[in-house]
């Protein structure tokens, strides 16, 4: 029996991919495979705190062309918890600053012998381009406003840990949907697992076209609030907005900030989530962020769990365990 099997870690048959590029392209079974393995790895590492060696001898390169603190560190820790080595690259001070294209930079790093490239870039589709150009696995750590699969997964894992299942829940994504990769990752992931998803915010940040794609579009938080099981409060992405989509932060907070008064109108067991970094006083007040319904810090821990799952499954694509095969035939 292998170490992984002894630790209770499986490779579900649904998983066959070498890359994790977006949640839009995955089916429900693949998403569940990631969540299940995340739970297993979280347990095997004592709540993401201890080191195991299931990926010993492998190397994970973080290639971030955009600033990041939590995602970068979360991926690094996830790799280290599983026994892999990590190597860090950032766009400032590297050859990218000297005019090299990001594909050439990635190829150079791959040539150093890495097994995964974890990439973040301001332009949608860059991980997909790298997956075509590189031989190693590519994990998307955020590509512009397009997708951020591990963020979507950690949000879903957190919901599932509290509610047992995603199916049938009403989840509202509130705020800057237009510029948010977290919003898109959640939209695809949650809807594939059977949740009712509402996108809520001012019309300049929430396109009516989302309704054409089958999602509920709302502009009045107070109207939808009593129906919601989960609120995911997205940060206003000032850095991605060419022109300010609302008159003032004060006006935005008045319309959409989750505060104590609004909490009184919410369901008793509502979960309050935020992908962070949070703008206290803009989308969420401190009383709510630090209150009993907030699971913001659990999300951070679960981030390591889903990133361990992404690393583990992409490294073992197709190597699903015999036990799992038997389970499949029974």
């Amino acid at each position: 029996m292998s170490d992984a099997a002894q630790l209770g870690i499986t490779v579900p048959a649904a998983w066959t991919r070498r890359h994790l590029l977006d949640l839009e392209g995955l089916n429900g079974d693949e998403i569940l495979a990631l969540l299940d393995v995340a739970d297993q790895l979280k347990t095997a590492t004592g709540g993401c705190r201890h080191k195991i060696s299931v990926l010993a001898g492998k190397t994970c390169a973080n290639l971030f062309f955009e600033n990041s603190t939590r995602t970068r560190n979360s991926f690094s820790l996830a790799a280290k918890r599983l026994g892999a080595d990590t190597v860090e690259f950032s766009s400032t001070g590297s050859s990218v600053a000297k005019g090299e294209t990001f594909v050439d930079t990635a190829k150079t790093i791959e040539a150093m012998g890495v097994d995964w490239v974890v990439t973040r870039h301001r332009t949608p589709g860059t991980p997909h381009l790298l997956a075509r150009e590189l031989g190693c696995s590519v994990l998307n750590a955020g590509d512009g406003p397009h997708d951020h699969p591990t963020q979507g997964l950690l949000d879903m894992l957190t919901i599932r840990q509290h509610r047992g299942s995603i199916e049938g829940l009403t989840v509202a994504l509130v705020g800057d949907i237009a510029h948010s990769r977290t919003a898109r990752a959640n939209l695809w992931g949650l809807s594939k697992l059977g949740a009712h998803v509402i996108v809520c915010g001012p019309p300049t940040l929430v396109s009516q076209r989302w309704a054409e794609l089958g999602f509920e579009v709302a502009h009045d938080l107070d109207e939808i609030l009593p129906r919601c099981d989960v609120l995911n409060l997205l940060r206003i992405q000032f850095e991605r907005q060419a022109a300010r989509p609302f008159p003032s932060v004060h006006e935005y907070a008045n319309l959409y900030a989750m505060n104590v008064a609004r909490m009184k109108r919410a369901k008793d067991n509502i979960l309050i989530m935020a992908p962070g970094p949070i703008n206290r006083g803009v989308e969420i007040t401190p009383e709510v962020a630090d209150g009993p319904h907030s699971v913001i810090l659990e999300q951070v821990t679960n981030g390591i769990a889903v990133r361990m799952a992404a690393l583990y499954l992409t490294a073992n694509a197709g190597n699903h365990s015999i036990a799992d095969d038997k389970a499949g035939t029974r």
Partner: protein
Amino acid sequence: MTAPILITGGRIIDPANQTDRVADLLIVDGQISAIDPAKESIPDGAEKIDASGKIVSPGFVDLGVELREPGFNEDETIATGSAAALAGGFTSILCCSSTMPCIDSPGAVEFVRQKAVQADGVRVHVIGCLSKNRDCEQLAEFGLLHEAGAIAYSDAPRPITNDALLKRALEYARMFNLPIINRPNVMSLSEGGVMHDGQVALVLGLKGLPTEAEDLAVARDVRIAEATSGRLHIGPISTMGAVDLVRRVKDRGIPITASVCPHNLCLDDSNLRSFDSRFKVHPPLRSPGHISTLKAAVADGTIDAIQSGHMPRAREKKMDDLDASPFGLASLETTLSTLVTYMVVPGLMDWSAVIDRLSTAPARIAGVGGGCLSVGYPADVTIIDPDAKWTVNPLKFKSRCVSTPLDGLTLDAVVDSTIVGGRVRYQRGDDSAK
């Protein structure tokens, strides 16, 4: 003088003279000498080209090609662009001002014309800048540019963003009877966009180029053209709204003209799901509703002409992500085949209409001659094999640009030979593009 040529047995399609029949075409001294010439009038030693099973058409005319020289020779040169045009069946092209320096001085016009003479291929007609430095502040010297040989004024591919300047240009150009060409685009609505603003852009998180940016510019253009009685060509257009405006204003008898690019008749915005920069083209690939409207408008003549939209960019520039890589494509060598594949084969348009949109109409709009096979006119002739099929491989293009959204597609019809002024300047061979 050039040697006489007798093109035998081809189907001669000449919309300007309402000709569509199998006949021989005699070229003498660089001019069309006769259709179905009497035996005794054929000079001894005339070169014979067997065109049985082929279509004999007036040479194609392109209303706006970027040649990029001087300044951006890595993208294209006048010589390589000329060779690409010939391989695409074009005998005349209008050259845009996306050069460094731009073509806002008589010297720049002369430079392009001289380089074209050296290239000794397609007829290159120069579009002079509409504004000095293409910055939309002040009119370029229309009179001096005209004297140097410019045949139209435009800042294309940049749009005219200054309403008052467009009005002044349309008024002022009237004394030279030359057209103004505008590429409709309200920049404040489209800034930073990389693809059609629709459902696909929303899903991909890519910044959109909204249709209203084009519609609004067309609405302004047609109103100013009407007010000034100026000669205005709008193009390329790519939206339902633009087609609607053009149709309505033409119904009122305002003599504006419009054109469309072949890529907007065949490929939709879902191609961007690949995140491949070869689909980053301008005008952008729109959603299917726009495509069917544009096809109908080309077929019924609301859209007068097809222009290739040739916008060559070097391979290294296109080898980047969708934000960083420029808009651009090589399209001179695929224009005819795209139209045949997506318009003629499905039965939306007949051959005569295709040749009208590619030759007769653009020649009339530009006022540069050509576009017909009338006796006594310069022999600009394109011979087409309508039944051949080929697979697009941009590495075989004459153009320096190897990026095309049609890469790998199999298309109908091939240009067999291109004759400019009675000289065969391109002949499809083993080493040719197809």
